[in-house]
């Protein structure tokens, strides 16, 4: 029944509310909108700004940046880095979480606390010695260095997530299995892992996303052109590379870098958001 809101005063307030929200939403969406618009513009027609979508959109920028500028290779490198690091981090963290929940041993508390405490250490603090060590081992510009380093950065948070989850699993399940004669390994594979599926998925996805988005480690450890990842490519392409002031090209490149995450977001919003919120905005 349309009595409407409580009178005119409320209507005015609602208008004000809307105005602020519209402003905030526009502000939030505008940069990405402009990015997309620019990415479909013909480079030759571009003069610094494209506020409205062109009537003659082109995919040229995408194909150029993909082929000529090596974004295809960079994309692969990003995939390799993020998937491998996420896999290693998840597997190792799962094992460690299991070990910490199901065993009692001297130093357990300290080791667990220390491991999770490492979440507080940002990569920039350790990048110098890390680089030196990798350099001494001859691993700079090898896949191993980037992947191991990235996995190492993601591990503390991964252990935190998986330990919290596994610790909440009912002890009785494991005790029953123990009484039934199942080995620790079997308990891990047949009870802990299957029951932890949501946490494992979350951990993997979160680690993969952070590794995908990371700039510092691939910048330092994967310096050759062969190994450049998308983020590194953007960082050096944009401001660095002479002659590349080609905005539409650049924006196409950025869009490619964002794409996987955008798709993941559209597919699995809730869980993704929840997990990312716990990890924070890096």
């Amino acid at each position, binding site marked *: *029944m349309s*009595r409407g809101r*409580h*009178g005119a005063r*409320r209507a005015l307030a609602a208008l004000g509310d809307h105005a602020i929200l519209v402003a905030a939403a526009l502000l939030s969406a505008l940069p990405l909108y402009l990015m997309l618009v620019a990415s479909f513009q013909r480079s030759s027609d571009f003069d610094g700004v494209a506020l409205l979508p062109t009537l003659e959109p082109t995919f040229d920028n995408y194909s150029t940046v993909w082929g000529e500028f090596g974004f295809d290779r960079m994309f692969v490198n990003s995939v390799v880095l993020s998937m491998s690091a996420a896999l290693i981090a998840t597997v190792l963290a799962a094992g460690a979480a299991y070990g910490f929940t199901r065993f009692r041993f001297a130093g357990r508390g300290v080791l667990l606390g220390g491991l999770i405490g490492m979440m507080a250490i940002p990569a920039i603090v350790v990048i110098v010695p890390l680089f030196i060590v990798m350099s001494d081992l001859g691993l700079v510009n090898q896949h191993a260095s980037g992947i191991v380093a990235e996995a190492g950065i993601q591990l503390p948070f991964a252990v935190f997530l998986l330990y919290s989850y596994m610790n909440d699993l009912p002890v009785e399940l494991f005790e029953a299995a123990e009484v039934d004669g199942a080995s620790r390994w079997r308990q891990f594979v047949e009870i802990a892992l299957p029951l932890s599926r949501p946490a494992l998925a979350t951990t993997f996805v979160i680690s993969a996303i952070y590794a995908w988005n990371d700039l510092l480690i691939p910048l330092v450890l994967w310096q050759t052109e062969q190994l450049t990842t998308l983020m590194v490519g953007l960082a050096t392409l944009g401001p660095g590379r002479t002659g590349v002031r080609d905005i539409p090209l650049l924006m196409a490149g950025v869009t490619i870098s964002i794409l996987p995450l955008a798709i993941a977001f559209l597919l699995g919003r809730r869980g993704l958001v929840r997990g990312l919120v716990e990890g924070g905005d890096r």
Partner: protein
Amino acid sequence: MAAIELSEARKTFPNGVEALRGVDIAVADGELLVLVGPSGCGKTTALRAIAGLERLSSGVVRIGGEDVGDLEPADRDVAMVFQNYALYPNMTVARNIAFGLRARGVAKEVRERRVREIAQVLDIDALLDRKPRALSGGQRQRVAMGRAIVRDPRAFLMDEPLSNLDARLRVQMRGEIVRIQAELRTTTVYVTHDQVEAMTMGQRVAVMNDGAVLQCDTPQRLYDRPASSFVARFMGSPPMSLLLGRLVESGGDLRCELGDASLAIPAEVLRARPSLARFAGREVVAGVGPDGFRLAAPGAAAGALTGAVQLVEMLGSEVLVHVDVVAERPSNAVAGPPPAGGPGGPSGARMSGRFERGVSALVGDRVAVLIDPGQLDFFDPESGDALPREREDASAPVRRAAAGGGT
């Protein structure tokens, strides 16, 4: 101080639930009206509609004669006490109480004085600097009351404020609320699901079920003259017993047949309820209050109801006996869901009676149930409505204490 009125109030929630189906409630200025009913009957929705926390789908809310439908809760000048007290956790008791005054721009000295006055009246002045989490349930309840009283509003709206207290405290607070209300003479609408509370507190009580008001009357009249079978079985402890029977004419008299028993209907009952004559030869629901029957040994009287004792409750000053009798039970719509079967096995209808201490009955005993026909009440077997009476005769209640004790 103001009268409150709900006219044809209807409220349907977005999920399709019809909480109010045309409710009419009128509270006189200074009166304490209780809204009582089972969970989901709409009583809380009605209260919130008065407060402005829910907007009616249709219908009018009037406070002090004016239509307040467009006013926000903040502007209606009513105070509300919530079931969980809703005390602001980050504020001290003093600030909690003063919150409404601050919101209205009352000067600081005036505020502080009023808060101290109210705190003294409610005996919480020692708690003024504490935070809610450091208070007991009873103390929190008083603070909630203080917050409502200090504003001197036009009306108090209370949503089951005592449900979270232990039994003893509840009884004590009931008395205090009634006393305070009587002193302040502030119009009050009080919601509860506890019919005992309703009966002891309300000047008038409105019984609600399924979004409608079934009867709004003084507690005594609700008990003596229930307007429907729902009211009859909801109010009173134990409530009225309902049996399905048949009215037959026999030799110029009207008799009510219940199970094997055949009761002659006394002339005064017929006079009070002329509509009974129309039910001759038809089924009818008979209601018997807990004081309306006696128990006797089986076979003690010819044509009595037979039954088996299911439950005996010794209350010290009296005894409650629940008997499953060999008679038909009205439909669930009229009599409610059937009680769980006792040791005697599920059977016809259950009757609950109140007897003096000293009555001895054991579970499983077979007994004869002797009903006083003068205390029978009658209801339509389809709708559950009480059969209409000729005239409201306040001096002749249908139910009265049975003459003599039980077996």
